[in-house]
């Protein structure tokens, strides 16, 4: 642009963008890998003209201009092509000549990513650092009156129950009378949260499934994975590995035609059925698979035409009221598998969670309640939903647990917490804190993607393009050219690594508290926080 030229409202300089590409002329070999790999085409080959004024010594020759051309990288400033900071350019550069840097001030791009009146949509996370979970400490250390246990050598039983647990008297009575006792699964307290086949690439999904199967069959860890709303590959439905899978049904019912039809061929019952009513990242909004990702395979599994966006409605269309419609839905899902499979709802964190919970306590079929807090991730959502809607998980879970304890039903309806667990890397500590606040287990998605597949998302709006199918790591893309970058075997290995290390860390937390015989659900006397208001709110100790 010339200094006297025309400026459009959305004319931005590189400085106005959230990420600036630093590129070194000295190191660049002009190999072109960076421009090829960039998922959003933020950089392109730049042909630069350079003028050099040469002033020779003496008077014999006059000063002259020398014009040269050199080649390099040019960063686009069009909002549609703004750099997302993924850093793939740096990953592929043989010489380390290029790197995106985050701007040191608030960017101006945010005011312009609404072209055509379409507000910003993205995948990823809330992009808020910190959070209460990281601030909770475990303060009740067993010292001399009771010895701390040995995390490495003592026997531990870190299992949780998924399913409606009856009061002991009732359970024994029904056992004697041979009545129906709700199915209960004994599972590992860290569940891989619902990420659909479609949101994730086939390689990513396969890797997760292989990892889960290995953990179960070779290591004896009953880890479960939820499908998310996108159905389940037909071969998996008909395999013995189905027992490690929690099938999710959501308001779009995607994939359920295939699931229902394969019931007669199922060798095993699924672990459970999760009815998704809400999601922490975009509460009150339905699932969304944008058209970029709906290829033939996805379309076939979901039972839809390819190439169209798949927005699930915000609520189940058959729902009239929680009292009877939710009960009916839970009951019909039970019926589909002969009352052998636990069925539970998942809601987004909300100040109305207690109302839902109280209703479920009166429903003898409700097997659990999963609550997904505001820090949950998603494959696609409106930015405003992600950034501003939702309820933090800690107080939601705590309120629900205390309410159950008041009713004498704590752990009868197990609570599962999701949303931001391990978002700053502290998976085991966050999980343990939630368990001691009253959760029976936790669900995690983002951490799994980061640890098992190297997702680049961070809490600073990096990458976040899961929605448009251009994931540079091949995690959330449906383009074979991209997802072949991800080796499913390696994903499986990492899943195993992360669960084993989580297990050790969890033991390293509970052993010093003197706990090993059972998961310390609701052991709030072990928790402290350096914030008096938070301590009071969560009914834990205030420590400074």
């Amino acid at each position, binding site marked *: 642009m010339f200094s006297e030229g025309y400026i459009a409202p959305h004319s931005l300089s590189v400085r106005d963008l959230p990420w600036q590409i630093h590129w070194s002329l000295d190191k660049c070999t002009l190999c072109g890998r960076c421009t090829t790999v960039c998922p959003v085409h933020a950089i392109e080959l730049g042909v630069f003209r350079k003028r050099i004024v040469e002033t020779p010594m003496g008077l014999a020759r006059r000063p002259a201009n020398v014009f040269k051309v050199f080649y390099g990288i040019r960063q686009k400033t069009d909002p549609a092509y703004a750099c997302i900071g993924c850093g793939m350019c740096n990953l592929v550069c043989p010489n380390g000549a290029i790197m995106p840097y985050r701007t040191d001030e608030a960017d101006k791009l945010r005011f312009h990513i609404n072209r055509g009146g379409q507000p910003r949509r993205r995948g990823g996370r809330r992009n808020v650092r910190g959070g209460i979970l990281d601030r909770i400490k475990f303060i009740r250390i067993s010292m001399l009156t009771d010895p701390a246990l040995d995390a490495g050598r003592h026997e531990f039983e870190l299992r949780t129950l998924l399913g409606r647990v*009856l009061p*002991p008297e009732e359970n024994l009575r029904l056992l004697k009378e041979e009545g129906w*006792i709700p199915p209960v699964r004994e599972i590992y307290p860290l569940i891989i949260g619902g990420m659909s086949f479609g949101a994730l690439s086939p390689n990513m999904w396969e890797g997760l499934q292989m990892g889960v199967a290995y953990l179960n069959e070779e290591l004896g860890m009953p880890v479960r994975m939820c499908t998310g709303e996108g159905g389940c590959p037909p071969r998996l439905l008909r395999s013995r590995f189905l027992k490690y899978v929690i099938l999710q049904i959501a308001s779009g019912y995607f994939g359920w035609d295939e699931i229902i039809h394969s019931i007669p061929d199922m060798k095993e019952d699924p672990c459970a059925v999760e009815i998704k009513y809400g999601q922490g990242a975009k509460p009150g909004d339905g699932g969304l698979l944008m058209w970029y990702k709906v290829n033939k395979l996805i379309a076939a599994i979901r039972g839809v035409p390819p190439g169209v966006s798949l927005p699930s409605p915000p609520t189940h269309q058959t729902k009239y009221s929680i009292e009877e419609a939710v009960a009916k839905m839970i009951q019909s899902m039970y019926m589909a598998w002969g009352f052998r499979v636990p069925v539970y709802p998942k809601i987004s964190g909300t100040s109305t969670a207690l109302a839902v919970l109280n209703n479920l306590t009166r429903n003898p079929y409700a097997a659990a309640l999963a609550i997904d807090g505001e820090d949950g991730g998603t494959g696609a959502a409106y930015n405003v939903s992600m950034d501003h809607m939702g309820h933090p998980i800690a107080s939601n879970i705590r309120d629900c647990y205390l309410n159950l304890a008041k*009713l004498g039903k704590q752990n009868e309806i197990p609570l599962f917490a999701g949303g931001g667990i391990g978002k700053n890397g502290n998976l085991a500590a966050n999980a343990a804190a939630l368990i001691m606040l009253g959760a029976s287990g936790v669900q995690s998605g983002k951490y799994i993607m980061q640890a098992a597949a190297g997702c680049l998302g961070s809490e600073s709006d990096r990458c976040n393009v899961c929605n448009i199918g251009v994931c540079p790591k091949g995690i959330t893309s449906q383009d074979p050219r991209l997802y072949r970058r991800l080796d499913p075997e390696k994903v499986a290995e990492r899943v195993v690594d992360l669960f084993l290390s989580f297990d050790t860390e969890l033991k390293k937390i509970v052993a010093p*508290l003197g706990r*090993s015989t059972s998961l310390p659900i609701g*052991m*709030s006397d072990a928790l402290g926080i350096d914030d008096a208001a938070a301590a009071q709110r969560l009914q834990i100790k205030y420590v400074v």
Partner: protein
Amino acid sequence: MCRLFALTSTEPQSPMRAIEALDVMREGHDGSGVGLFLSDLGGPWEELDGAPILSGIFSNEGLKRLDRFMMDIGFMTKYKLSIKVPKSPPPGVPKRDIYLIRAYELPEEWEDLSRDEIDFRLMKIRLQLRQMGQENEDMIVFSFWPDCIMIKEIGDPLTVAEYLQLDRKELRARIILAQGRQNTNYAINLYACHPFFIQGIATMTNGENTAFVPIRDFLSSRGFAGYMGYQSDSEVFTHIMHYTLNMLGLDVPYYKHIITPLQDHDLEDHPNGDFLRHLKHSCRRLVIDGPNCVIGCLPDKRVFMVQDRKKLRPGVVGGKPGLFALSSEICGLDAIIPDRDKSSDFQPMHLDTVIIGPDRQEVQICSQKDTLPPIH
């Protein structure tokens, strides 16, 4: 760590024998308190024919309030043991007005009540007295039950016992539970002193139950009036036993399955595996954790000992037909029954429950891996 000693004998014994055992083991307690539970009583108490006995500590004012209260609800004193103590207590023991052990005649209108109803009402009266006492700080009530006496006080066990002159002939029992306290995480409060009591069940423990808070929350939410007032993390052991026997109708061998259930691979091979899995799932909230040796006495005069899942605490059972003792340390057992066959001493391990019946002829050992007795 606290010291525990229990004995069960066909002949009534003086509580001093148990106190002597505690004294031998004194390195392990700090003299912060002593608790005694006596049952299957001898002497004059044998003729009381099921009259409930109230045990507690009262101020003069509190005693007057007690008398008014008991009179109002129709209880008449049937027999009492007055403990007159010297004017000034020994160092470390607080000054009290009255240590009361008093048996009452049941009110006439209770005659037609069922056993369960009587049991419930007796418990309610104990709780009511406890509450009244806490309001005015003039009474501390330990037990109110037929054939049970409890004495608790702050101080060194032997000093307290001599001060209270416990070696008197009116005070003899066939079952004696004694605990010398090592004060841990709670203030010295007599309600935090072992043994704990509910409806004829008494237990005492050493070590700390790290799963206390969730268990307390579960028990307090059962809607049963007696599950209240937890001053010690060990009180839940007594209440879990009560819950096992009275609410679930399960016998002692099941207790261990509730507090420290078997792991899955063991359940798979267990003859009662299916039942135990249901028990494990539904009673998950009662699973204890931490180093604990639990010794207790049941309403049918059986005494028992169990250990935590890792057997982190010592505990030994030994004796001879007619006299057995359960002790946290072997030296305590040696001091009281030196002439026993030591080779048949038994130290229960992580799966065991030891039970000695009222015939006091043998030590019955149940392992968690054994087939369980049928449920009635």
